[in-house]
């Protein structure tokens, strides 16, 4: 090929260009085919290499993950974090590894780091139950109530591995627990109603929900759940005690008495139920407004109650509280003066001669019990029973 130089530039003649062009046209497909096959060959080679590479990484990742799980179970959180981090080196972005790492970090109380991982996981799978639950726990820990509720609700309606219903129920139980912890009783009650609606005929779960209703001060639902639990033939002491407590709080002392008696019989060490049973029995014994009570019996109860209230008044006054100067509710005058004034009439004869005295005497008893409970602390024994009867009488 001839090159001519003109003005310092190389000139290719037209004939040469034509020849080049022909050759170029004829060789281009061959060159491209060659490059293509070379690329395919290399691609296959690298594919083989990548299989070896990924097999090794997978093996390393699994080995470190297994170690991590063992450490996590044994609560060796520091080791678990290192293990899971190593596993993630070889399987970057693996969901399970990250989730376990987050769990280990939570175990170490490294909440912020765990939160970063969980948030990343949440972005990948917003419907993952465990991630939502852990995020809810972190938000709850950070006192971010709105976030916590959002994540708890996400978790309740999320997808869970294994038995979804159980996981969802447990999450809702945790949410109720959280709501009760922040004193959001109304929200807790709503959640409990939803929880109760989805319960199977599992007496343990029913009793557990009853407990939660009890904590949420929804005694009616609590009693219902305990009854359902016991209906399934499982009269365990805790359920009986819970039912007794619910009936007691509802003022259904007859019912409470039977449940509490059974509870104490089933578990004699249950001091709380025993104390409550005593109070219940006192309420039942000291209530002069019960039906089917003879006049003599009623009068005896009124006299005893009046005496007991007087004792309570005296002990409260002696501890420095001036009951004589305190006006009780709408009744004018001091309680001590009123008691002193009425006391001579509260005899069997007096009550028999003037039946209206029963009402007046018991009204004074109730006033004294209420006032002394405010001034001198919660009453015990008969006084406690009288205070409860006062509440019962008010409601009737």
């Amino acid at each position, binding site marked *: 090929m001839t090159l001519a130089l003109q003005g310092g530039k*190389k000139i290719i003649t037209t004939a040469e260009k034509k020849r080049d062009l022909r050759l170029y046209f004829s060789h281009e497909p061959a060159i491209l085919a060659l490059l293509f096959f070379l*690329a395919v060959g290399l*691609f296959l080679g*690298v594919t083989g*290499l990548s299989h070896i590479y990924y097999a090794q*990484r997978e093996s390393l990742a699994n080995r470190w993950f297994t170690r991590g799980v063992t450490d996590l179970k044994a609560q060796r959180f520091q080791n678990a974090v290192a*293990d899971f981090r190593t596993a993630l080196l070889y399987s970057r972005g693996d969901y399970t590894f990250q989730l376990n790492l987050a769990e280990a970090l939570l175990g170490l109380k*490294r909440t912020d780091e765990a939160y970063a991982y969980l948030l*990343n996981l949440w972005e990948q799978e917003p419907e993952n139950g465990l991630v939502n639950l852990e995020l809810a726990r972190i938000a709850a820990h950070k006192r971010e109530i709105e976030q916590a509720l959002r994540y708890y609700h996400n978790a309740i309606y999320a997808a869970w591995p294994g038995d979804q219903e159980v996981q969802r129920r447990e999450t809702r139980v945790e949410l109720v627990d959280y709501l009760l912890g922040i004193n959001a009783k109304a929200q807790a009650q709503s959640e409990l109603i939803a929880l109760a609606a989805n319960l199977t005929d599992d007496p343990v779960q029913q009793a557990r929900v009853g407990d939660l209703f009890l904590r949420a001060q929804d005694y009616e639902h609590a009693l219902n759940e305990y009854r359902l639990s016991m209906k399934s033939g499982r009269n365990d002491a805790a359920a009986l005690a819970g039912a007794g407590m619910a009936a007691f709080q509802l003022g259904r002392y007859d019912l409470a008495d039977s449940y509490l008696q059974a509870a104490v019989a089933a578990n004699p060490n249950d001091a709380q139920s025993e104390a409550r049973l005593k109070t219940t029995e006192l309420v039942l014994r000291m209530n002069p407004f019960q039906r089917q009570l003879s006049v003599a019996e009623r009068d005896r109860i009124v006299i005893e109650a009046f005496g007991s209230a007087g004792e309570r008044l005296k002990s409260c006054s002696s501890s420095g509280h001036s009951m004589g100067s305190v006006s009780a509710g709408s009744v004018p005058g001091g309680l001590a003066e009123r008691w002193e004034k009425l006391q001579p009439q509260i005899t069997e004869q007096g009550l028999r001669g003037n039946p209206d005295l029963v009402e007046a005497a018991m009204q004074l008893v109730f006033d004294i019990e209420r006032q002394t409970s405010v001034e001198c602390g919660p009453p015990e024994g008969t006084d406690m029973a009288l205070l409860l009867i006062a509440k019962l009488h008010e409601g009737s």
Partner: protein
Amino acid sequence: MEGSFNSDSGLLPLQTETEAEAAPVASTPVGARGALLRAVFREERFFLILSVFIGIFSGLAVVCFRFAIDWCRVYLLGSGYTLSRLRLLLAPSLAGLVIAVLVIHVFPLARGSGVNQTKAALYIYNGYIPLRTAVGKFITAALAIGSGHSLGPEDPSLQIGASLASALGRRLHLSRDRMRLIAPVGAAAGLAAAFNAPISAVLFVIEEVIGRWTAGILGSVVLSAVSSVVVMRWFLGSESLFRIPPVELKRPSELIAYAFLGVVGGLASVAFSSGIVTLRPRFKALPRWTQYFQPAAAGLLIGLIAVLGAPQVMGAGYEYIDEAIHGQFTWQMLAILAGLKIVATMLSFVSGTPGGMFAPTLFIGAMLGAAVGGVEHVILPHLSWSPGTYALVGMGVLFAGFLRAPMTSVFMVLEVSGNYSIIVPVLVANTFAYLISRRLQPAAIFDVLTRQDGLELPSMEEQREEGILRVEDAMQPVTGPVMDADESLEHAFQLADAKASDVLLVRLNPTGWSSLVRHELETMIKEGKGNLTLGSVLIGRQIPLLHPDHPLDTALRYLDRWPLVPVVNRADFRKLEGVISESDVLKRYRDLGEG
């Protein structure tokens, strides 16, 4: 025989653009001209297809390079997250010894990061990079990074890509112009695959290696970068380098905090580059036998740093950048890591260990950014503190301040974060860092390194900053006669005589300009053409138009044919803004040279 068809191999004939331009097109028949144009077009098309193959080959090479680094890491340092002390000390030291022997005896061109070598190939060696360099870089850099030397895989990937492209170009007997271009095309592919960021790779290669934008270059570079990234993602997945948390700028006043980060980052960049610039020649000046031990000594010191509690400084450190982004270090620890990484990278680099500067720069930037953010949060707790945002901005800051690639630094952060809300903080911080770095260290690190190596490559930064001389800088006011095309030659001659002017400018109808030299006029008058109009004798002698804003170089193209060229208004071509002659241009260039 460059720029010609190689008859021995029978491979494709690829002529150069210069050759095509210089060919006597006007004298060739129409059919031949068409064939030539088709050939040129076909060459362009072939180069684009070739760019795709270069991308594929580079992507495959980078994937293997990543495998090699990981294998080296597992076998040299161990597979665990926490490493044994003995390995931490021995692996980088012993690997350093092996690397030194390989670099001195087998792969001497594998030394350094790879960016300058690629630039040198473009500007000095006509795109020639031996394939051996790619092999050497692959082996030595994988050993270095895998054994814990504080270097990254990006710059070596860039050089491996460039070297593969160069080898392919040679095998296909490409023309010299194409050979010069093919190395940057491969470089972009290598960098894109290593970084999983095609836009940043394209920008970096255009901004720092080629230095100019043309459709031809851009097309090839983009195609190669995209194809290499596709290959890389095929094998290594499409996950970004880091898990990016939500980025948010709550109040515009927070930009002040980012500006402060820019200032700190600028100062850190200067400290980092000054350290390298100062230490590198001193290490090179040490007796030759010490070069066998320099990488080992650097490795030992890095191992010591790791044993003393900062193993994070070893290797590229991407996993730790990720941790910093997610707030897993205290600000004190972040600041310590940034400082130690500067020291470790300096040691690795100045000892001549092959490996890149990109990853360490990102590491230092991320740590520094998150540390500055942490401090700001302690002082100003109301700021919406997000370590991730500060770390990301910090990466951009160091990129702008240390590597001095301002455009790439912005797009790199955008590409890595995938979040455009971060652009404003990045722009603010990068600007501060870039300006501070330029002020305190006028020459960019890559430029200084090439000069230290005794090469004089064009500095892209200096080119960007260089003022362009324009026609308006050299043009002179019109003093000679200006006539209309309908005036007679006789009248024109009288006017030229009266004004004692050698050149007469003629305004043609309806637009355009021409000129007549006095002796031409004289000759025509003597030939009895005095009554003819100027327009009738100046047919086909229209002077190309020059405007005041044209580069001065443009004027030079016309001045060998036209002694005086009119400079006309862009809105009104008949309005003269001035005139320019060859002597005016030369005088302006002379003044510039003296100034």
